[in-house]
C-alpha cells in the first residue's frame, strides 16, 4: 500500500527514536502520545466519509512499569525495522513476534502476537506510515476474487496478467498481501459482492452467479484482512463499481460489514485507505429472517451483549441498523447465510439475491 503521500518510513522511525533519546537527554520521561483506541473515541470524518480517531489521546510513558516495557519494546522494534528497511528485506508479523525471543532482555520480548501486532499499529499511527512501509506483512489470509475482471500483478517473480474468471480455477484469484501491487486492466462487472462465508461463495460460483449477473465475488473469509478491504475499496474507487456485502444474520457478521464499510476501531488511522463507506448491506437482515421464515438459532447472551454494544457504536447509528438490531433483539433469533438453502439450493441465486439487489437498485 505504498501510497505516495506516506512519509518515508525509515525517517519517521528514526525521528521517533530521536524523540525518545532527547527526552532522556533532557532528564525528561520518554513518552509517546496515541489516540485512544476505544469505541468512544472514533468520529465520522465528513470529508473522507470514514470513521477516524477522535481527539482523546492516551500517553505511553516510562513512568509506569508497563509503559516503560512498551517503550522498551518499541525501541527494539524500531531498531529492527530500521535495519530491515535499510537492508531491503521483509518479514511477517508472526516472524517479528518470534524474533523478539532472540532479544537478550526478557522485558523486551513480546508476550503474545497480539502485543507485537498492536505495537506495529502504534508505530504506524505515530509515524504516519503503514506496516507495508516497514516491510511488515501479515500472513496470507487466503481471501479470493472471482469475476469478470482482468488485472496485472507485480509479483516477486515478474508481472502476471490474470483474468479472474478465465485464468483461475474454481477457487478464484487469491488476493496478495499488498494489493497495491495490482493494476486493474479491464472488466465487465456491474457490481462487487463481498461474501462472508466460503460455503456461500462456493454456492454462488457453482450456480454461475458471477457470470449471470456480471458480479465480482470477493470472499471475505470472516473478518476481512486489510488486503481484502483495500482491494474492495480500489474496485469501488477506481472502477466505480457499487459494493454490497452479504453475510450471516448475526451481530458478529454486522461487524464484518462494518469493517468493510466504516473501517475497524483498531485501524481507524488507516480508514481512508481501507474503508468503503458506500458499501451496502444485502443481508441476512433480521427482517429477512422474518420475511423468508428462515431456520434460526436462538441468540446467546454474548450475541445479545454484542447487539446492545452495536446500538451504542457510533458506526451503527443509522435508521437502518437501529431498526434491524432492535428487531433482532425482539425476535431473539439469528440465521446463517446458508439457511437460505432451506428453500432449495438455487433460492439464493434465483430469488433472494435478485430480489434484494433489485430493492437496493444495484441490479
Amino acid at each position, binding site marked *: 500500500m505504498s501510497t505516495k503521500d506516506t512519509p518515508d518510513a525509515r525517517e519517521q522511525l528514526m525521528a521517533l527514536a530521536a524523540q525518545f533519546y532527547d527526552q532522556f537527554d533532557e532528564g*525528561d520521561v520518554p513518552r509517546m502520545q496515541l489516540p485512544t483506541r476505544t469505541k468512544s473515541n472514533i468520529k465520522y470524518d465528513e470529508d473522507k466519509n470514514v470513521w477516524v480517531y477522535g481527539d482523546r489521546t492516551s500517553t505511553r510513558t516510562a513512568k509506569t512499569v508497563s509503559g516503560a516495557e512498551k517503550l522498551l519494546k518499541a525501541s527494539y522494534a*524500531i531498531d529492527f525495522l530500521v535495519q530491515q528497511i535499510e537492508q531491503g528485506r521483509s518479514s511477517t508479523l508472526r516472524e517479528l513476534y518470534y524474533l523478539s525471543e532472540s532479544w537478550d532482555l526478557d522485558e523486551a520480548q513480546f508476550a503474545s502476537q497480539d502485543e507485537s501486532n498492536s505495537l506495529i499499529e502504534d508505530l504506524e499511527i505515530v509515524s504516519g506510515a503503514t506496516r507495508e512501509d516497514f516491510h511488515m506483512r501479515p500472513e496470507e489470509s487466503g481471501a479470493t476474487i472471482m469475476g469478470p475482471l482482468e488485472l496485472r500483478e507485480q509479483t516477486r517473480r515478474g508481472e502476471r496478467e490474470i483474468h479472474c474468471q478465465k485464468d483461475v480455477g474454481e477457487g478464484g484469484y487469491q488476493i496478495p498481501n499488498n494489493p497495491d501491487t495490482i493494476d486493474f486492466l479491464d472488466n465487465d462487472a456491474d457490481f462487487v459482492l463481498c461474501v462472508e462465508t466460503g460455503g456461500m461463495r462456493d454456492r454462488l460460483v457453482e450456480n454461475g452467479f458471477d457470470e449471470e449477473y456480471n458480479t465480482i465475488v470477493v470472499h471475505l473469509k470472516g473478518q476481512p484482512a486489510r488486503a481484502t478491504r483495500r482491494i474492495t475499496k480500489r474496485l469501488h474507487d477506481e472502477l466505480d463499481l457499487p459494493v454490497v456485502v452479504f453475510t450471516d444474520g448475526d451481530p458478529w457478521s454486522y461487524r464484518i460489514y462494518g469493517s468493510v464499510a466504516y473501517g475497524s476501531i483498531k485501524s481507524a488511522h488507516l480508514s481512508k485507505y481501507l474503508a468503503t463507506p458506500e458499501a451496502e448491506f444485502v443481508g441476512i437482515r433480521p427482517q429477512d429472517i422474518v420475511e423468508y421464515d428462515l431456520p434460526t438459532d436462538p441468540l446467546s447472551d454474548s450475541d445479545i451483549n454484542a447487539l446492545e454494544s452495536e446500538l451504542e457504536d457510533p458506526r451503527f447509528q443509522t435508521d437502518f441498523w437501529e431498526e434491524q438490531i432492535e428487531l433482532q433483539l425482539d425476535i431473539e433469533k439469528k440465521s446463517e447465510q446458508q439457511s437460505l438453502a432451506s428453500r432449495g439450493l438455487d433460492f439464493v441465486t434465483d430469488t433472494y439475491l435478485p430480489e434484494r439487489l433489485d430493492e437496493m437498485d444495484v441490479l
Partner: protein
Amino acid sequence: MTSYQSRLGGGEGVAEELAESQRSISIAEFFEKNKHMLGFDSGARGLVTAVKEGVDNSLDACEEAGILPDIYVEIQENRDYYTLIIEDNGPGITKEQIPKVFGKLLYGSRFHKREQARGQQGIGISAAVLYSQLTSGKPAKITSRTQGSDEAEYFELIIDTDTNDPEISVEETTSWDRTHGTRIELEMEANMRARQQLHDYMQHTAVVNPHARFELREPKNHFKYERATDQLPAETKEIRPHPHGVELGTLIKMAEATDSYSLSGFLQEEFTRVGQKTADSVIDQFRDREFGRGMSWHPPEAHEEADIEAAVTEAVSNKGAEATTEFAETIADRIAEHDRIAHHQVEEIVEDVGDDVQVEYGTTFGGTVREKARDAAWDAITAERESDLYTLVDDATSTRKDDAVLQAIAERLADKFEPGDPHRVTHEDLEKLVDRAADMTEDRDDATFGDTARENIVTALWEAAVRVPDEPPHISGIGDDRDAASNLLEAMRETDIISPPTDCLAPITDELVEAGLRKEYDADFYAASTRDASVHGGDPFIVEAGIAYGGELEDGGKVDVMRFANRVPLVYQRGACATTDVLKDIGWRNYNLDQPGGSGLPNGPAVIMVHIASTNVPFTSESKDAVANVPEIEHEIELAVREAARELKSYLKKRRSMQQRKQKQDKLATILPEMAEKLTAVTGEEELNIDNTLARIMNDVLVERERENGSVEVIVENNDDRNADLEITEIVSAEPETNGDAQVIEMDGEWFIKWEPTVESGETETLSYDLPESAECEISVDGVESEKLTVDTDQ
C-alpha cells in the same frame, strides 16, 4: 444423697452412726482433693501455676508499696523434684503475717474490696504451698525483710489441712542481702513439660508490666526481661459496689453487716452511685415487689346503683345527722375527684375527712367508724368491676378481638378480685391472674390470647394499679428475710442507676502496651489502643489491645494471641476464652491479614494482645484461665482490637505500596538503561545518562485505580516533597455511587465524578466509589505538572 431416715432401717441409732462420720471439712482439705480447680492438676501445670501465683503476689506487693518490681524466679532440678524460688524487692511481710499469708488458704485483704487487683481470693500462693507440701512433703521456706528492719525473718511451714492453719517448724531471724523483700522456696514434684507455657507466662507478664524487671533462671536457661518504664501503674481506688453488680448472698451479708438503720440509708451508704433520689426509686420498686400495688377502680357514677354517700351514711351511726352527712358527702366528693381509686387512697381520704369533721363538729370519729366507712365506700367502689376491666382489656388488645371474648375475659378477671378486698397485687400476681383468665377464655370461648396480648393486659392492669405508701422494713429486717432481700435485689437491678465510677481501674495505657510489646518483640510495627471504661453488671472494666507485626516474629501459621486479665497472663484454656472468640469472629482480611476461610485466627507474623482490667473479671472457672462470654466485654474487646487493627491495616497498606514502589524502581532500573542503550545505538548519538529521568519518575504523584467487585478505588500517592492540590475526574459509562466527597455530573450518558483532594507530601489518599463492573472509566488529573504525574490505571 445419703438417706437420714433412721426409722426405715428399723434399727435405732443409724442416724447417730451416720452423723458421727459427718463433719465439716476444712477449706484446705477441700482444695487438697480439688487441686485442678486452682490450676494444680498436673506436675507440668503445677509448676507454671506456682510461678504465676508467686509472681502475681510479688507484683501486687511491690505496686501497693510504690516500689518498681524486681522479681527473680529460679527453678532448680533435683531428680524427680523441683525447687522453685521466687524473690522480690517488695515491702516485706511482718513476722506475724508471714505464717497466715503463706500458711492459710483464703487469707487476704482483698476479697471484699472492689478494686482492680491481680489476686483476689487469697488462695494463690498458699495453694502453691499446699501443692508443694502434698507432692514433696517438704515445708515452704520463707524469708522476708521489711523496710528498715535490720534482720530478715525466716520461716519453714506447712498448712495443717484439717484446720487450715499454718504449722510452723522453723522460725528464726536471719541476715539477707536484700534491704527489703520476700523470698519463698518451694519444693514440689513437677516437670518442665510446660516449659513453653512458662516462658510465655514470663514474657507476657513482662509485656503488660513494662515497669517491672524479671529474671528467670532454669536448669538450662537464663532469661532477663528488662524494665521499659519507671512509671508505676496508677494507684487504684477502692469503690463501693454498684447496685447492678451484687448478688443475693453478698446483699444479705451487706445487710447484716451494715451500720445503717433505714433501707434508704443502707442504699446510700453501702453502694456507689446511690443518692436520695436513686434510693427512693429503688425503694419504690421494692414496694411494688414486697407489698404489691393497689388495684384501682372507677368510682361509681350517678346513674349507677352503688352510692358511696348512702353507703357511708349507713355505716356511720350515732354521730349526729349533720356531721354524718358532712362526713359522707365529703368522702363521696373526694372519691369522685379520682378517675380511678385504690383501696389505700380511699383509706387516706376517710382518715383525712374524719379528722376534719371531728374538729369541725366536735364529734369523735374513731377507728372503728372510720374502718366501717372505708369498707362501705370500698364496697361501693368495687361492686362493679367488669366494665372497668373491659375498658382496660379492650384498650390493651388489638382491635380484632371479638367483643364477646373481651367481655368474657373481663368477667373472669373481675371474679379474681373479691368485692371489698383491698386488691393488693404484685406484677407476678397479675401475670398469673391474667394467664388463668386467658386460659379459661381460650378453653371455653374458643378464643386465642397470645403471649403479647397477655403481656399487654398485664401491663395495662399494672399501670392501673397504684403504688402503696407502706413503709419498707428496716435494713436489718431485710437481712433476715431472704424473700425481702431478693425483692430488694430485683428492685436495685430494675432501677436505672448511673454507671459506676471508673477511676478504680488502672489500664496499662496504650503507650505502655506498645512499650511492653516493643521491649519483648522485635517487630516492624506496633499498635495499641485503650478503650474508655465501660460497665458490665455493676463492675467497671477497660479493654486494651495491642498488635505487633513483622520483624523477627515467626511467619507461617496463626498469629500469637496474648490474653490478660488485670495484668495477669491467661495461659491455659485459650479456646474457651471470650477474647479468642472475638478475635476469631473479626474479618481480618479487611485489615490486610491472611485469614483462610474468612474466619478464625488470622495467619501472619503477628502478636495480638488483649488486656481486660476490671474490679471483677468474669472468669469461666476458679482457675482463672478464660474470660466468660459477657456481651458487653466482648463488644469492647472487638472495638479495642479493631482500633489497633486499623493502624495495622494502614501500615500494611503503606508497606505494600512501598514494596510495589521498590519493585517498580528495580524494574525501571533494568528497563530504562536498556532502552537508553538501544536508542543510543539506533540514533548513533552519545551515551545517555538517565539518572534525572529516574529521579523524576520516582518523585511523582502516582494515581492508580483498583477495581474489585463493583467497587473502585482511585489511589493517589504523593511522592513529591510538596503537597499536591489535585483535581481528579473519572469519566464513567454507567451511573456511579459515590460517598459524598465527590461531585457527580451527568452529560450525554457519561458521568463525570470530580474530587479535589489535597495530598500531603509522602501521603496517600484513596478516593472510592461504586461502579458496575462492565462500565468503562477514564481518568483525568489536573493540578500537577504532567511530568510529575503518573497515571497508571491499566490493571
